[in-house]
């Protein structure tokens, strides 16, 4: 005979069990999740300072040690103080793409990077970060390019991305590139100094400053080549660095951007610097014995209002 007390107890337990077991059914859903179009907030970088006087200038330093060339070129533009202020967090972005040694001219000259780091620190920068998203294994690439050692000795922090967590999805606001993962140190920085090396490139014909900005983003970069010129211009419009210092000490004439053979390398012992991305690239391309008008992304960048290819309108400072 079931007493009332037992009845309540047993039915109570059964009810409790069915509530617990049934909770999961509240999640019933007829539309399983499907990858949604990524939509991130528009992010504007404020590295670029609009100064018409400075914008007109392109500094070309020649025939000195790599480090001195950087020093001289920046001095010709008014000195590092014109770009870096006290307390700035500066990112120096060399081209550290490939597992090559400096003589092979596939990566920015390490001495130049070191000098730039020292200059930024002397201008009162709070922190200088040297970073790039390499193509080959980043640990090998930073070591063999000599950039890790040079940058660290100069007092910079070398940031090597080790996971997707180092990126943040933001809207670049480009006509082709919208939401892409961008390296967090770039998003957090006050100043960005782009330090490319001038090289031949099979697809874009030449890679200098604007193409070097591929290294600030993650994601499926190998798809960008389908519309390489627009991709480059979108990135250049997004990043608009504080300053571009192009390494033309050794340039890679063939088999770029990786190179490998010293036969592909020409010694030009030069540096081109300025804040007009288009003008710097235009001038640097001359060291590769190429016609800038044929490098698709350079005329496209000019058309997009990034700068000018007409060097005769520029104030070229040869030092």
């Amino acid at each position: 005979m079931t007493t009332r007390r037992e009845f309540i107890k047993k039915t109570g337990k059964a009810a409790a069990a069915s509530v617990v077991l049934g909770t999961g059914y509240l999640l019933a859903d007829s539309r399983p999740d499907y990858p949604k179009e990524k939509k991130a907030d528009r992010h504007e970088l404020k590295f670029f300072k609009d100064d018409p006087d400075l914008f007109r200038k392109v500094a070309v330093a020649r025939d000195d040690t790599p480090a001195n060339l950087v020093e001289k070129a920046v001095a010709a533009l008014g000195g590092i103080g014109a770009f870096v202020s006290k307390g700035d967090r500066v990112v120096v972005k060399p081209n550290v793409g490939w597992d090559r040694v400096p003589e092979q001219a596939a990566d920015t000259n390490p001495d130049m990077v070191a000098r730039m780091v020292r200059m930024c620190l002397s201008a009162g920068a709070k922190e200088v970060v040297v970073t790039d998203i390499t193509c080959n294994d980043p640990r090998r690439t930073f070591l063999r390019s000599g950039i890790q050692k040079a940058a660290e000795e100069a007092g910079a922090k070398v940031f090597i991305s080790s996971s997707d967590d180092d990126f943040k999805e933001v809207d670049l606001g480009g006509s082709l590139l919208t939401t892409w993962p961008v390296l967090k140190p770039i998003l957090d920085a006050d100043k960005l100094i782009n330090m490319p090396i001038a090289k031949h490139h099979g697809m874009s014909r030449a890679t200098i400053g604007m193409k070097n900005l591929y290294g600030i983003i993650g994601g499926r970069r190998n798809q960008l080549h389908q519309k390489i010129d627009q991709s480059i211009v979108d990135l250049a419009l997004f990043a608009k660095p504080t300053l571009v210092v192009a390494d033309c000490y050794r340039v890679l004439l063939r088999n770029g951007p990786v190179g490998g053979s010293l036969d592909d390398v020409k010694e030009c012992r030069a540096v081109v610097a300025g804040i007009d991305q288009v003008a710097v690239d235009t001038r640097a391309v001359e060291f590769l014995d190429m016609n800038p008008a044929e490098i698709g992304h350079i005329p496209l960048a000019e058309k997009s209002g990034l700068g000018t290819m007409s060097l005769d309108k520029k104030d070229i400072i040869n030092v």
Partner: protein
Amino acid sequence: MTIQTVRNLRRISQGLFLTLFIVLLLRTGFSGTLTSDSIKDFRLSWPVAVFFQIDPLVAIATLFSTWRLYEGLVWSIILVVATVFFGRFFCGWVCPMGTVNQLVSLKRSNRKSIFGLNLIDSNRWHWYQNLKFYVLLIFIGAALLGSLLTGILDPLSLLIRSVGLVVFPMIGYIIEAINGLLFGSGVSALTYVGVALNMFSQHVLLTVKPAHYHTIISLGLFFFLVLAANRWFTRFWCRGLCPLGALLGLLSRWSILGMQKDHDKCNQCNLCLKYCQGGDDPIGGAPWKKADCHLCLNCQAVCPESVIQFKLFPSDTASQVKPAPSISRRKVIAGLAAGAAAVPLLRSGDELKANFNSLLIRPPGAVEEQQFLARCIRCGECMKVCPNNALHPTFLEAGWEGIWSPVLIPRIGYCEHTCTLCGQVCPTGAIRRLTLEEKVGTKEKPAISIGTAFFDYGRCLPWAMATPCQVCEEWCPTSPKAIYLVEEEVTDPNGKSVRLKRPHVNPKLCIGCGACEKACPIIDRPAIYVTSVGESRSTYNQVLLERHRKAS
């Protein structure tokens, strides 16, 4: 020194060697230093494969299979001589796999297992403990005919590949999963924990991205079964299957250190059996099975009646000791013959010559396939050290004989042009040590090639879809590039004529590194892929007449 002290020394020794083993395995990754004279070449700063150099099973088996003794393997003479004098102490005091098995065997219950044996009964000597000697004989028989199979069951190979390729990546996966939650939470305190975990991956596990290895289910199941077996029979692997243990057991028959028992004092309390690791019958009334004893000294330490004593030059009467396993000469010959017979069985199939797998891309510097199978001990060191996660254990790609040997899968990782780490860690010379110059070639000598790239035109953007793309060409590391471009006029989907560059492979220059395959944006099945043809190690598996001449 009391026996308890010696037993504690043994525990300390086991702990130290296991720690050393794990530290060396963790350092088996890209943590090298640049050679001081230039920044040209990377050298590993730790001798990470040093355990194999004292492993006489590797030395003896490769000696039989190649009639050569590779580099540091001569050092194993130390362990041979030490074992001849002092017995199988390696198993009880040094072997990291033994220590792991011992740890997993701890605290077994005394209930009857599914085999109908309680703990004490299971720790008596059983027939299965002779299996390891047959395993060894079969392997030696095969080695004499040039097939090296010992690595499949060598305890050091087993532990390195299981921990390095299975357990560490599992930890990496767990870290990644936790980090997904931590970074997803948006709480900044938690993201710091995530950053710390990433630092751990990067600096301790030495991976930039979590490693993913092919066919680890087969490695993992095997390893976890070995571990699980300890719960039915203490150190089942060491007692029953380990070929290195068998070899050391056979060598110990002349040892001058051994057990002497005072049979009359024994009151059959079974304490010695409770703690016995080797299953060698330490109890009074039975002869001690010398070839099975790991010299852990538990029995002497726990015996309340002082029956058991380890000493130099113990009595060697038949009631005291059985110095060697009772395996008849007939069975020895049968074992060797079985191993020898396995070789034609494994090799007359199609995998080696008639129908070899086109995707069996061996690491750079690997020797010719038959020689390779006579040397590779499946330790997985090359796969662990590869900075690009390019090398993986095979399953059946190299035939049954080649199970768990290295294969390069470019889709997962390509061969880094200037990297020579796999040859630096290979303990047996299955992968030759290469200098950077040998690998990338000079004007006089061609580069080491591991295969050749081919286009799948139906999937290639410029070839099939009138869309510009040449990431393969961009990534090609040779100079001049092995991928060249030809500008052509093509018709786009709207019927419009457009000019674009189409990539082609120059087989003379291609080294098969697979950078193109890795970089191809058609990510599920790349439009450019590498097969083994053109590999430097073979004079037969070639495309070009010219290249063939060069290679030979």
